[in-house]
């Protein structure tokens, strides 16, 4: 296998950088696509290919929702339907509203005409042109994508899928029953075909083939650009761990709706293209099996893998239109040969959905990442890298930091007052008041269950306080959403490390920068110089963040974090939190699970952060560490602050000893 690959030059190919490979592949694939009609010389194949492009568009759209953002949509055919009916209604005589002045500009633009029938009121004849409708359908679908997505925002996984299934069931029923709009079960007929510079696409498959090719190329391009951008990283972060994504500044409401909208828009393109080619639209074309078919394509190719999804969609489409029919003919021929009546009657196309079912089951059991998953080029560590003595980041430097803020307690930075939170009658935070000054390092200690992590969750917005205020630089942040609090300047790590496991170290760090970058959807797709520069600087800053840990993370930049050692995952998480450029950094047991040497290294690092002017609040059980690095120690017990002061002072506090060791029984 390997020998063959090497002989064919595959190894050399793989060694090329991604951008170079794309430079070579793009013209090759486009050329093949353009030449295909000539190469095959068979109008039937061209027609099949043009239809297949519809499926590719749908699969690419669903891939944005399910593959990138991890939102399983079981009713995706709804958007196919909405796009299809959108164009179908605008380009057929289905609606004939009464004429009014409203239509005059559209008439002038050649999109409608005034229908004069003697003895009746004048009506409007629709004949909207295909090209603007392509965009309009996409926008309509995007709006519906957000409408259908909005109710699912608080739901996860299976439950989200069920709601989308519900919408997917409702849309075809509405299409069937709203006869005035859709002509009911008979469907729309006489939909106008597209025209370009006076050339009518008509019923020849060739113009549709090239149109489809162009749409697919555009959808692939958009998908790739989105995936490799701030937007795509935010989606993947939500997919991997929604809570951690929020704690890194990703607004999950915004990005989920965006994923639904983008996915639906691409599906709408598919629907518009499909009805323009077919010139008819009926409710049966958009039922649950269609949603499942598109899901089969995405699952087969690999969730999130653009090339895999395109190939799988082409395969499934040709399976349906060519392969099964050819196979059927072979089986019939075999039947004639052996004189079997049964074989001559076999129609394999009827088992298409059976094949879909089998594909789903087999893929889920044996290959959930898909047949051609999105590759992650992981450079194997060299022997030197593996055996290198760990070097510490000698001098921690962060371009954005303000070391002048360092140097002892300054103005109050984080002010917590009267903070309360109870869970079903148990007070996890009971009237906590605490002020942290700029440049300070405050440790929070206390027995298990004393409310330390709850305090962090309240400050970072993961849970809402029942009462009390949390102010950062005088501005109230209590009860705000996590991503807003990150943007304001509070970052955290988690007690039980929450990284984006399937993303690389670099990607994790770039997600950390999310709140400090600006690129939106359009910026991500068109990548103007401003966005290009922003991305470049983001990578530079991430490298700066990695350098904090010397040579620990540097060789592993492109490794998925699930493969890292425990200590390296802790380090990645700290680096990721630092990438948000926090004013206050909340570290939740950063030394847990680290050996003494690693712990010492970490303590040096924490001191280095202080040197850069970052204020730190630390939860830690290793008391020697706490006593060593802290300016001030706060002790919690049962949600109540029982002591606060310099380390030495707290160490001898009666109540603290009691909280940790229990009350000494006094002899009567």
């Amino acid at each position, binding site marked *: 296998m390997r020998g063959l690959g090497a002989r064919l030059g595959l190894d050399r190919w793989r060694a090329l950088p991604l951008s170079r490979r794309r430079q070579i592949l793009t013209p090759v694939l486009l050329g093949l696509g353009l030449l295909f009609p000539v190469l095959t010389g068979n109008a039937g194949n061209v027609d099949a290919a043009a239809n297949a492009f519809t499926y590719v568009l749908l699969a690419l759209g669903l891939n944005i929702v399910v593959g990138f953002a991890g939102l399983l949509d079981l009713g995706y055919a709804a958007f196919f339907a909405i796009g299809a009916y959108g164009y179908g209604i605008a380009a057929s005589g289905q609606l004939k509203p009464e004429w009014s002045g409203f239509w005059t500009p559209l008439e002038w633009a050649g999109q409608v005409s005034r229908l004069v029938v003697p003895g009746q009121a004048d009506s409007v004849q629709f004949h909207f042109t295909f090209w603007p409708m392509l965009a309009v359908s996409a926008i309509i679908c995007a709006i519906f994508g957000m409408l259908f997505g909005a*109710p699912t925002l608080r*739901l996860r996984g*299976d439950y989200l899928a069920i709601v989308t299934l519900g919408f997917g069931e409702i849309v075809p029923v509405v299409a069937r029953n709203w006869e005035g709009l859709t002509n009911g079960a008979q469907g729309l007929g006489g939909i106008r075909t597209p025209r370009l510079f006076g050339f009518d696409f008509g019923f020849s498959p060739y113009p549709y083939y090239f149109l489809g090719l162009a749409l697919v190329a555009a959808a692939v391009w958009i998908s790739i650009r989105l995936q490799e951008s701030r937007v795509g990283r935010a989606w993947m972060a939500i997919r991997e761990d929604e809570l951690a994504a929020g704690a890194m500044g990703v607004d999950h409401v915004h990005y989920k709706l965006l994923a639904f909208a983008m996915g639906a828009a691409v599906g709408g393109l598919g629907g518009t293209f499909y009805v323009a080619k077919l010139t008819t639209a009926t409710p049966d074309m958009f039922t649950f099996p269609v949603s*499942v078919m598109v899901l089969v394509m995405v699952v087969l190719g690999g969730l999130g893998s653009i090339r895999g999804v395109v190939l799988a969609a082409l395969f499934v489409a040709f399976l349906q239109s060519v392969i099964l029919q050819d196979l059927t003919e072979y089986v019939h021929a075999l039947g004639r040969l052996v004189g079997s009546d049964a074989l001559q009657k076999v129609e394999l196309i009827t088992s298409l959905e059976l094949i879909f*079912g089998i594909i789903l089951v087999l893929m889920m059991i044996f290959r959930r990442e898909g047949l051609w998953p999105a590759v992650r080029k992981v450079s194997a560590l060299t022997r030197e890298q593996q055996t290198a003595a760990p070097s510490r980041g000698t001098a921690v430097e962060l371009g954005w930091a303000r070391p002048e803020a360092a140097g002892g307690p300054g103005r109050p930075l984080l002010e917590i007052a009267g903070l309360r939170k109870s869970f079903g009658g148990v007070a996890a935070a009971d009237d906590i008041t605490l002020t942290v000054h700029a440049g300070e390092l405050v440790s929070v200690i206390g027995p298990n269950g004393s409310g330390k992590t709850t305090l962090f969750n309240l400050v970072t917005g993961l849970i809402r306080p029942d009462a009390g205020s949390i102010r950062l630089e005088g501005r109230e942040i209590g009860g705000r959403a996590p991503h807003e609090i990150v943007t304001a300047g509070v970052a955290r790590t988690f007690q039980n490390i929450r990284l984006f496991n399937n993303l690389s170290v670099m990607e994790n760090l770039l997600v950390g920068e999310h709140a400090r970058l600006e690129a939106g959807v359009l910026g991500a797709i068109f990548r103007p110089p401003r966005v290009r520069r922003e991305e470049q600087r983001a990578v530079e800053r991430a490298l700066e963040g990695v350098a904090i840990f010397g040579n620990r993370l540097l060789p592993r930049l492109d490794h998925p974090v699930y493969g890292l050692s425990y200590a390296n995952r802790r380090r990645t998480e700290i680096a990721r939190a630092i990438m948000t450029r926090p004013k206050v950094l909340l570290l939740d047991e950063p030394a847990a699970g680290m050996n003494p040497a690693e712990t010492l290294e970490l303590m040096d690092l924490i001191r280095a952060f202080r040197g850069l002017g970052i204020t730190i609040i630390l939860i830690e059980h290793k008391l020697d560490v706490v006593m060593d690095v802290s300016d001030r120690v706060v002790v919690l017990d049962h949600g109540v602050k029982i002591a606060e002061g310099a380390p030495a002072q707290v160490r001898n506090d009666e109540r603290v000893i009691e909280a940790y060791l229990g009350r000494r029984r006094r002899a009567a």
Partner: protein
Amino acid sequence: MSGLDVVLQQVVNGLALGMMYALLALGFTMVYGIIELINFSHFSVFMTGTFVGLTVLNLMGVTAVSRSLSGLSLVTTLIALFLVTMLVTGLLGVLIERVCLRPLRNVSGTAPMITTIGVAFILINLMLLTFGPQAQRFPSLLPNWRWPLMGTAEITFKQLVLFAVGLVLMVVLSHLVKRTTLGKAMRATAQDADAARMMGIDVDRVVVLTFFLGSALAGAGSLFFGLYYGFTGYYIGYTTGLRAFTSAVLGGIGSIPGAVLGGLCIGLTQSLGGQLIGVKWTDVMIFSILIFVMVLRPSGLLGVRAPQKA
């Protein structure tokens, strides 16, 4: 015919229909309660059950057009029919669990649910290929006794049987889950499979038994469907299944009394809503309920556990 007896008739029909959904929802909700799996294949098992029952009856020489049975021969036929069908569907459920779902037991996310969609497609299309696309007549074994209630409204023997069976099963299942050793093992598995294993519970056995019971229930439900409506078709798993599924969600997925309550609500919605608004909008009403419950109260009417699984 006054308006009131039409409404009453629709209520009776709706409750009977609801009990049908409840029978299906019970097995589905039980599986969910133990392994938090939304098992779409449950409803295809139900659909397959109708064809198993049909085949069993044909093998016993009973067809839709043969003379009706009565007395002892009817009782023995019914007993044999239920035993064989429930055994076959139960084993089918076990097969699905062993082959398709056990490898995914510890896989988080939506993969197991997607698998059950695949299984559903396989079963639906196998039945379609074997028995053809047309609806099949199902022998109407139960007597067609009916009693007037008020005006033109009446209640049939079959409807009474459905009520009785639904309520008895609800009580029996609740008892099984709440009061027996197996039930305790089930609840422990539902809470924390690893901890249950460490306490000496054979988790695999519990899950297999749950699937067997749930699928056998689907088999029983399928026979009631056939006997009540007198037909079956490959598509009933989908149409009836999604409504039964909505019932389970409405009642509180994982809750046994909830499945029955949800089923009755959906049955009434279908019959009364169909009467008042129009049959063609039935599915829109039912799926709107599904969406509203999921969004506003994912734990349903009687559910205690809010969905946790991501």
